[in-house]
């Protein structure tokens, strides 16, 4: 645990833009009188270990990493904040129009494209929710795109792969996060004559700033104060918020991670 006043934050470098984002946020924190520095990791597993050892104060975590931190600290870790986009995330089951799939039951015997094994939105939760609807996923043929393992689906690459497989007819159905699905449609990358949405999962929450349980209260408060001072209307800050995919930072909430905890238990991945 760093003893000086500087807050040391961990983030996973899933893309070169991550450096731009955190350099910008560090500068903003400095302007707010909150000394902050960051360390970049190549994967969330390492980042979680370093947080638990107290080598970093705060980790910017995916839902999977967040749930691990909660379990490993027996719920004593401190949750500090999340993006507006992290609330009420959904996953989509998307199908080829010519695959004859009118409901989830019709997935039996079909090829279902799924994202990375550690992607909450493209693999873990959609499979959990589909099963919860009474569909035996083992009756489908899974076409898995296990790209960027360790990045917990942050890159979105596996979701793009799922959509590509659907367009090319290598899969009948696929699972992706709701944001990728609507953003790809907005960008005109989806042929709505070939591919359409079938079903939307219940909502769940996404990323979270997790702090070590022993982080000093003044650091916790300083971090939240500087974080929530970022505003979309400010051109410099807007640039950072755009890159990080949010319009405003929101306070934490724990209610949105229950489904993921259950899914991990069921899938024996705790």
């Amino acid at each position, binding site marked *: 645990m760093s003893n000086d006043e500087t807050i040391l934050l961990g983030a996973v470098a899933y893309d070169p833009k991550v450096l731009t984002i955190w350099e910008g946020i560090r500068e903003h924190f400095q302007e707010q009188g909150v000394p902050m520095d960051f360390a970049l990791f190549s994967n969330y597993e390492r980042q979680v270990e370093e947080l638990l050892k107290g080598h970093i104060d705060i980790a910017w975590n995916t839902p999977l990493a967040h749930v691990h931190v909660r379990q490993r600290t027996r719920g004593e870790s401190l949750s500090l904040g999340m993006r*507006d*986009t992290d609330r*009420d995330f*959904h996953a*989509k089951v998307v199908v080829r129009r010519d695959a004859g799939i009118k409901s989830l039951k019709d997935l039996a015997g079909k090829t279902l494209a799924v994202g990375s094994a550690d992607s909450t939105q493209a693999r873990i939760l959609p499979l959990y929710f589909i099963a919860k609807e009474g569909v035996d996923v083992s009756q489908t043929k899974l076409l898995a795109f296990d790209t960027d393992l360790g990045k917990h689906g942050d890159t979105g690459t596996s979701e793009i792969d799922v959509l590509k497989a659907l367009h090319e007819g290598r899969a009948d159905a696929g699972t992706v996060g*709701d*944001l990728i*699905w*609507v*953003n*790809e*449609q*907005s960008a*005109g990358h*989806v042929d*709505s*004559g070939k591919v*359409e*949405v*079938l*079903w*939307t999962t219940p909502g769940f929450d996404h990323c979270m700033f997790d702090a070590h349980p022993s982080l000093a209260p003044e650091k916790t408060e300083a971090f939240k104060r500087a974080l929530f001072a970022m505003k*979309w*209307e*400010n*051109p410099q800050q*807007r640039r950072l918020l755009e890159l990080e995919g949010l*319009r405003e930072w929101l306070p934490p909430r724990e209610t949105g991670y229950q489904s993921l905890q259950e899914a991990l238990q069921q899938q024996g991945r705790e």
Partner: protein
Amino acid sequence: MSAEIAVMALDCGDLPLGGGLLSLLRPALNDLEGGGILAVLSRAASVREDLPSWCRAERHEYLGVEAIPGDIDRHMIARGVFSVSKQAPPDEGKLKPSEGEQTASSVLDISPLPLTADPSTGFAPRGARVEPGGPAYPFTLNQREHVAPPEVARLYDQAVSAQWDATRDIPWEKAKTLPFPLASALAQVMTFLAENELSALYVPARFIPRIHPAYAEVAMFLATQLADEARHIDVFLKRARLCGVGLGISSVTTSRSLLSLMQTEDFTEAAFLLSVLGEGTFLDLLSFIERFAPDEATAELVRRAKNDESRHVHFGLAHVRYGLTNDPSLYGRLEAAVRRRAAALHGVGGVPAPLQDALTILAAGSTEPKAVARGHEAYRELLETMHTSRVRRLGHAGFTLEQAETISDLHTPNFM
């Protein structure tokens, strides 16, 4: 008024979200105030899944769906605060249809120039609905009184219709082959004109990137001025090269004078020095050359250049007069600018000697001593005329006779 919430309904038929629906939905939402409600009528089942997700991604509030008769879903959306909101109707009317022409002046009538302009609207055309949060641009001329006199659109319209072709509009075939002393004098005069017009091309160009695009008409007028100067440089050098004796001399006096012009950092001061004093003085110089032109080609190109320059002088005068009306302290600043420049040019001597001699010989039409005496007299009168016109022009700009006399006396011996 704040409680007033607009509700609009939008029929999207069976369009899927990614198959055209967004092209109806997004503009409709942009027409609502923040919190305004849109009813989306849809027959596409996929929209039930996609619309709530799209609203989440775009921070609009999805209020729910109900089935209405006709197998139609009615989705309700409240517009979020992060998209481009409907703004008060812009301070802008509709351009009237017009037979034959649409002028910049008629545009200005319905889209007036704002008093001040916001650097963060960037290159957004005046009247556009600007999404908030854009970067600030380094425009420094953001106040109407410093940049945009009301006459600008009229002068721009005139400039556009007065453009001509340096290649074809001059009767080049009528350029005479002149005897040596006259050929040499004309080449010298044309060299001097081209050198000065080069500075008149570069000086205004420096200010265009500083002008806020809300005053685009000013930048557009200056663009015509640049095109004018380019054409003048072109015809002056062509005429010089038709003399067959090479180009004339470029004097240090001219070089120092033009550098001091180029180093003027204030737009109004530069307009005053370049257009009111410099180009103003050039009007008399060009009239002189036209009067003593040895052939029709020379007379025609000088006449055309003078017409253009006269427009630049008008704009310069309008610019300065407008600034003076709004800020009387400008008189002092302009006089100080002239004094500073005179101090920088102190000791450079009078009118560059090669030009003096060339103008005298041109007016004389030969080197015969009696003719040269007449030429010298004409040249002396020219200097008088230049001074008198400058004083008159400065009077039009609003200076007192005493101020005008002082400023005219301090004006550069290089004319520009």
